[in-house]
């Protein structure tokens, strides 16, 4: 059975990583690249085989699980080193191996000048392996291996240029902020075990509707904790600050880790746990709000940045916000859809920006670019396609996925969510085209000593492929599929997302009843949702218009009237605020980081050294002091000694009588 190959998928990159890590210096650069890409390619091929194997599963079986070995356990707790293949996993596997493979190939060109080329690929492969574990694990803890593993690789890759302080700081920051999320994730896992007695996804999801009360406290706490975990990994408010800094890493890293795969792990996790989230309306609302809010906020910051990669980073934050928004309104398919298309176009964008940076020798400031269109045509055109996609222009992939998110946020959510989505869409179109215009159009502001050039084939080919994918990716989720009965992502993910609300509510009602409480009326929740194709169509046109408006705005500001931004921003305190990213970093620094460090110093110097050790040494000194006092009596005079005997005598008498 082809499915038996499952465990090979993460294994190949791991082996590649080990080979490169240990022998990379010896086997030479070409071999390193070959090993890295080869392992990813094998992984990709295996994924295809598994896909075929999955299709051959008997009717009605949607999950295939493979337990490699029992990882560890204690008492009645056991956790397997097991993988599961289901539709969601397959989608993610393809994204990871597919996009991963393309970016690996690209990296061969991009990283070619690097001395520690092998190190890069070792980490990169390791990342892919961890990411695959994350999406393939059949229980929360195995997912957590991947979860932390990708964070760890991200740490190394961000800090790849370890001699740069900013890179190191960014890496550390990424890791630690992620850890805050992981902290919540871990607690959630423990809580889940506490309630369910297992942490296998399928068991938990299966049992959840029967063990948890709809809207109950437990499920809310669990999902909230999970969500905090997701915000860390996926760079959402309030834990998003690490992602822009993470751009210190090499550009392929930004493309693969900080755009296509790792940062979407939070979305994946929420979709994976959709049953739990479905049970907690409060959490859902929170997710939607945070997602929408992040989308808008990051987009505003994106408008003001000048570092090409930072703009893309904020754009990523913003787009992931979209996905969370979709999750929050229960449109998990839309979230995954957007995740996939985003992987395509954002990877392409990042790689394109990498190509630009490569072409002008490492310059990242857009104010020192401009007019590059003619110098690097392939890059330009692929970049443009992806930009159109992200802006949501028909018929590129972004249009469909974004539109689905917006449609659901209105239909399943409310007007506020929709409003957030739309404004983010407007801003996205604006800042993305600002980026395109500033980089590729207009006058060249490039340092005259630099001669921009197009990147080698090995880099442009991936761009072309990704641009192609960004173009056609929308086919995965053509709208109106309800009417046309197309085999799209919707029906593909149906087994994963199947959730019988009525059943869950019935159980909850029973449980509440048993506890002697009245179940609230849930009847309105069970009303069937209507799908109005008219509204959907209308919304499409509207969002298209919004996107075009954004593009036009960018055109006005940066092509037609380049002096406008200056004028516009003159004396605007608000802009200052945005430009400085709302001073969130500074706020965290002042309110958390510095107090912690200062407090720790205080603890060390005052509490440890003075209080505790002081007490210890003080005891010793007191003893010493007594010792010196005792010496005084030993005066050497016989008569004194005799006096002591007499004094002793008298004291003893006093005690006696």
């Amino acid at each position, binding site marked *: 059975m082809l499915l038996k190959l499952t465990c090979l998928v993460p294994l190949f990159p791991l082996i590649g990583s080990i080979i490169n890590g240990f022998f990379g210096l010896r086997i030479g650069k070409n071999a390193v690249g070959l090993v890295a890409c080869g392992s990813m390619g094998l992984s990709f091929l295996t994924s295809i085989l598994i896909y075929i194997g999955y299709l051959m599963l008997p009717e009605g079986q949607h999950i295939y699980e493979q337990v490699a070995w029992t990882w560890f356990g204690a008492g009645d707790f056991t956790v397997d080193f097991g993988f599961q293949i289901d539709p969601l996993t397959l989608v993610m596997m393809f994204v990871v191996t597919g996009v991963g493979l393309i970016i690996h190939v690209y990296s061969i060109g991009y990283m070619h000048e690097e001395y520690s080329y092998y190190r890069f690929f070792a980490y990169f492969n390791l990342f892919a392996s961890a990411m695959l574990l994350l999406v393939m694990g059949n229980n929360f803890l195995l997912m957590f291996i991947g979860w932390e593993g990708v964070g760890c690789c991200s740490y190394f890759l961000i800090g790849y240029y370890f001699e740069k302080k900013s890179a190191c700081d960014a890496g550390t920051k990424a890791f630690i902020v992620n850890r805050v999320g992981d902290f919540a994730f871990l607690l959630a896992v423990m809580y889940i075990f506490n309630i369910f007695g297992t942490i296998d996804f399928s068991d938990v999801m299966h049992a959840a509707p029967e063990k948890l009360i709809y809207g109950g406290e437990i499920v809310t706490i669990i999902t909230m904790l999970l969500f905090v975990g997701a915000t860390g990994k996926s760079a959402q408010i309030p834990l998003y600050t690490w992602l822009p800094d993470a751009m210190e890493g090499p550009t392929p890293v930004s493309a693969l880790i900080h755009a296509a795969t790792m940062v979407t792990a939070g979305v994946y996790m929420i979709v994976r746990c959709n049953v739990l989230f479905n049970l907690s309306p409060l959490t859902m609302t929170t997710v939607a709000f945070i997602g929408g809010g992040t989308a808008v906020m990051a987009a505003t910051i994106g408008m003001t940045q000048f570092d090409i990669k930072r703009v893309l980073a904020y754009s990523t934050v913003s787009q992931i916000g979209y996905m969370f928004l979709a999750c929050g309104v229960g449109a998990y398919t839309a979230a995954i859809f957007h995740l996939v298309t985003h992987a395509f176009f954002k990877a392409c964008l990042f790689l394109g920006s990498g190509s630009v940076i490569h072409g002008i020798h490492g310059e990242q400031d857009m104010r020192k670019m401009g007019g590059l269109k003619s110098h690097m045509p392939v890059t330009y055109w692929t970049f443009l396609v992806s930009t159109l996609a992200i802006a949501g222009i028909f018929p590129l992939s972004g249009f469909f996925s974004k539109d689905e998110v917006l449609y659901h946020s209105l239909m399943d959510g409310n007007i506020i969510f929709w409003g957030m989505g739309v404004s983010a869409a407007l801003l996205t179109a604006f800042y993305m085209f600002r980026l395109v215009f500033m980089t590729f159009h207009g006058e060249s502001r490039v340092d005259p000593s630099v001669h921009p050039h197009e990147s080698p084939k090995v880099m442009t080919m991936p761009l072309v492929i990704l641009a192609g994918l960004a173009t056609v990716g929308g086919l995965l989720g053509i709208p109106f599929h309800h009417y046309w009965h197309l085999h799209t992502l919707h029906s593909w993910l149906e087994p994963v997302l199947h959730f019988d609300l009525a059943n869950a509510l019935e159980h909850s009602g029973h449980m509440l009843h048993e506890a002697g409480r009245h179940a609230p009326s849930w009847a309105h929740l069970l009303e069937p949702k209507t799908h109005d194709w008219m509204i959907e169509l209308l919304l499409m046109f509207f969002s298209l218009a919004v996107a075009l408006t954004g593009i036009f705005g960018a055109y006005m500001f940066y092509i037609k009237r380049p002096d406008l931004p200056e004028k516009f921003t003159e004396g605007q305190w608000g802009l200052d605020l945005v430009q400085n990213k709302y001073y969130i970093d500074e706020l965290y620094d002042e309110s958390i980081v510095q107090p912690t460090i200062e407090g720790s110093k205080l603890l060390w110097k005052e509490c440890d050294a003075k209080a505790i050790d002081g007490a210890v040494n003080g005891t*010793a000194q007191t*003893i*010493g002091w*007594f*010792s*010196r006092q*005792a*010496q005084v*009596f*030993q005066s*050497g005079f*016989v008569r*004194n*000694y*005799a006096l*002591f*005997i007499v*004094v*002793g*005598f008298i*004291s*003893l*008498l006093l*005690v*006696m*009588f």
Partner: protein
Amino acid sequence: MEPILAPESIDLIALAPVLVLSVFAMLVLVLDLWGGRNKTLLVFTSLVGLLMTAISAFAKHPIPAYSFNDSYVVDHLSLFFICIFTISSALAILLSVEYNEREGIRAGEYYALILFCTVGMILLASSTDMVMIFLGIEIVSICLYVLAGIRRNDHRSNEAALKYFLLGAFATGFLLYGMTMVYGSTGSTNLFKIAEFVQNPSAQSNPLLLMGLVLLIIGFGFKVASVPFHMWAPDVYQGAPTPVTAFMSVGPKAAAFAAFFRVFAETFPEMSPSWEMLLSIIAVLSMFVGNLGAIMQTNIKRMLAFSSISHAGYILMAVIAKSSLGSSSLLFYMLSYAFVTFGVFAIVIILGRKGEENLEIKNYSGLAYKHPVIALSMAIFLLSLAGLPPFAGFVAKFYIFSAAIQEGLLTLVIIAVLNSAISLYYYLKVIVFMYMKEQEAEFRISLTPMTLFVVLVGVIGTINLGIFPNAIITLASH
């Protein structure tokens, strides 16, 4: 008037050790006339005498046996103590030979004095009559006064002798006065009779008797160097010749504890509520003052003197426990203490040379790498003194603490335990110098065979009692 001494109550066989040793002591005195400068014969005779004494001690069967109107007893306690005494005297003699030669102490009576002193100790440990106790104490003391000052030309030795003598005599006054009061209130000097007498509850509250007890405590307390009657000890230990110091801190002390135990734990157990508190105070004070005093010392002999004060505090717990476990723990403690103390002082002697005794602790710097075996032995002794396993000191302390806990003296034990921790500091300090400091000056030590032999005996005794204490414990706990 009752007959004072019935002839049939005189049992010379029971008295054999005393007699044998006295004879040998006098023999040594006589032999000294011929020996000239060579003291080998004297030493040999002394050792033989001690050996004979030890053997003769077991001549009496069955035990317990009484002699001289029940004023002299041969029982397990005394037999065991006689063994301790003979061993310690023998070790002291062995230690002295080379030391005396080195330091130019040529007095032949030195050995005789040690033997006489041992006679006193045996009497003290075997006596069940206050008169006998007094005699024993005085025999021991007078010999020690002389021994302490045997280096006639040494100012310190002189001063030590003077201080010891004056204070000793002073304390003897208290002891005697106490004995008188006990005698006056009970009508007897014999411990058995006294014990019988104080069975009567009304007799127990006699203020005269209580006063007598306090005075006895002072007398004995002085002999065992317990606080606040300890002040002589550091000065005398420091000033006396080192072998004498070693001897003093083992034999006479053990003997005094034997008497202490006999008088308090065996004679007045019913009155323990009235003296337990006093002894506890003294014990606690001894531990604290001894340990605190030792911390600041730079002279090793003085430090060991203070350490011996603190040990007196621990041993007092055995007296306070007053059970059979108390007596056996006392025996075991004294035996292990004998080995350790002689070992330590042997090393102190080894470290010195003629003219420079190297008594400062800093003289030990770096010893471990120049003379590893000596340093290791010293470390073993010190750790044993500190009560660390697997050495004799640990088992001994365990024993005493057990005895005390069995009697419910938990507070006392906890204080003792804390004191052990304090004491660790100064014992470790010596180890610090030996192992962790760089050598300061060239070691010119006197590695002489007999002293080394004493070290060897000490090490073997310390380790053996620490790891295989069963035999001795079985003996001691009869």
